[in-house]
């Protein structure tokens, strides 16, 4: 057997695992379809049920359309919910003995988690894009330019990737595939609803607003709004560049904390 330089070997093993994880989505397209149905439902319900009422409270930069305000937030919601897939996938592999097989092979130790999180960010990119297409069909238009839209997608992907590592830690800690289905929502629900995803935070009570204004989902959503709607969509005193930097700092901070924790949990599997 040939010996390869270790970073090269790690990259190659990771790509083998990425391919394996993505093939599952290709062979079972229902997975992607149903993963898209839920966010599209959110999109339609919020836009048509609450849109009329909330529309009056949103900044004019949204062009008078709630859908324009909603889409940047939903991209982040999908990124957060989609990352739960990482926890589910890992617990399934654990319970089926696949992780044992990987751990008994002379492969790069980092490849299992890296392969899982990279595959999931690609998958979530597909779901986010599908939802964006539906958004377009029902009237979403960016108010800046295509680069702003691309930048917004990049922010959503960065968030999705960082959240995948949070979910990896949850999956490796909870271990049971059924229990993890509920566990992944525990951090995601409060973050998504107590945020600027659906409504501007100005109308929230001050204690809640203090939380909502200083948590990653709001930071990500604001960054995307700045990129696709312009500075007028941001809270007073915010700039697009400033909010994008804050968002990226959150993504980097989450990775700095959760990558080592997830790797440690992986090493401690018995």
């Amino acid at each position: 057997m040939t010996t390869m330089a270790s970073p090269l070997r790690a990259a190659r093993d990771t790509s083998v695992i990425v391919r394996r994880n993505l093939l599952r989505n290709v062979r079972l397209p229902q997975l992607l379809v149903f993963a898209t149905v839920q966010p599209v439902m959110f999109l339609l319900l919020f836009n048509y049920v609450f849109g009329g009422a909330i529309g009056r409270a949103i900044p004019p930069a949204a062009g008078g359309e709630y859908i324009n305000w909603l889409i940047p937030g939903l991209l982040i919601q999908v990124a957060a919910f989609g990352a739960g897939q990482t926890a589910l996938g890992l617990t399934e592999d654990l319970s089926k003995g696949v992780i044992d097989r990987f751990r008994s092979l002379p492969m790069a130790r980092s490849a299992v988690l890296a392969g899982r999180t990279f595959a999931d960010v690609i998958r979530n990119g597909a779901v986010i894009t599908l939802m964006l297409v539906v958004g377009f069909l029902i009237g979403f238009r960016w108010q800046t330019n295509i680069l702003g839209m691309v930048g917004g997608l990049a922010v959503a992907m960065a968030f999705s990737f960082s959240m995948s590592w949070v979910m990896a830690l949850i999956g490796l800690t909870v271990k049971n595939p059924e229990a993890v289905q509920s566990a992944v929502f525990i951090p995601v629900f409060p973050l998504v609803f107590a945020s600027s995803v659906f409504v501007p935070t100005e109308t929230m009570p001050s204690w809640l607003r203090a939380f909502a204004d200083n948590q990653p989902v709001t930071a990500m959503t604001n960054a995307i709004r700045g990129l696709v709607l312009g500075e007028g969509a941001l809270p007073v005193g915010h700039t697009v560049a400033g909010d994008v930097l804050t968002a990226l700092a959150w993504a980097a901070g989450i990775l700095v904390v959760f990558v080592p924790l997830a790797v440690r949990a992986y090493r401690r599997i018995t």
Partner: protein
Amino acid sequence: MSERPIVVAEGITKRFGDIVALDDVDLCIEPGMIYGLLGPNGAGKTTLIRVLTTLLRPEAGRAEVAGVDVLTDPQEARRHLGLAGQFAAVDDYLTGRENVEMVGRLYGLDAREAKRRTAEILERIGLADAADRTVRTYSGGMQRRLDLAASMVGEPQVLFLDEPTTGIDPKSRIDIWLLIQDLIARGTTILLTTQYLDEADRLADRLAVIDHGKVISEGTADELKDRLGGAVIEVSVGDDVRPQVLEALRSVCGEEPKIDPVNGSVTVAAPDGPRSLTRVVLALDEAGIVPDDIGLRKPTLDDVFLALTGHVAEEITVATEMSPGNRKRRGFAFGRSER
């Protein structure tokens, strides 16, 4: 060099909280043999396999596979070992070929070599026709064979098979036995665990009987049977007279008789063979006891097991009572039933 053992364990001890899963276990396996670890569910067989395959660190002891210390150099040890666990660790949505190729790549083979070996192995294990179907269309037995194929693709010197035939139908079981014998013919060393005494008897060159984390006996199947003496007497009686029968067997044979918890029959080693039997029959007749059945027979591994542990291999009763179709594997605890 061929004399050097290929798997060595010395003083392996592993605890899970208060439970001692492995208690000072020694093991020494010569190259090219099938070594059987025989014991009931929970005896520590799987824990030992997990230690030897680098998945679990023991609190004490050392272990070697193919001359490599598994505790100090696990990554090197992994190059020389293959593991097929209790579950078929294969991906439902990949084809059989993709599953095996993936494992080959992760052993460090380049794409072409992984492909070549995969094709050869799938042919050898009789899955060539099904190679390009997704695994979810495979039967349980096919999945286990595919799992075995994946563990072989790196051409490891030692294969660890954890209950390779648990939960599969009798036909597939024989297929896997033949595969294991084929592997041995090619020089691979195999350590397998089993709860099935007939499987151990048929396959293993040497056996270690393990119970409550300890190796309680070690040797070839014949050696283990010989330790019981050349023959055993088995008596079937009703519950009402069993105490008197036990007493009669004890006094005639000078050994403590064992009661089989499954069928209630009483067995004891017969030190003098047929003469012991004659004396037992006379003693029973004198006491006015008419047994349902009585006979002298060669000991089986069941007798060895019963004599050594004081209980039958628990899961054997489960396995024979349940048809293969509704037999459940331990994975069911995770809410997963077998297809």
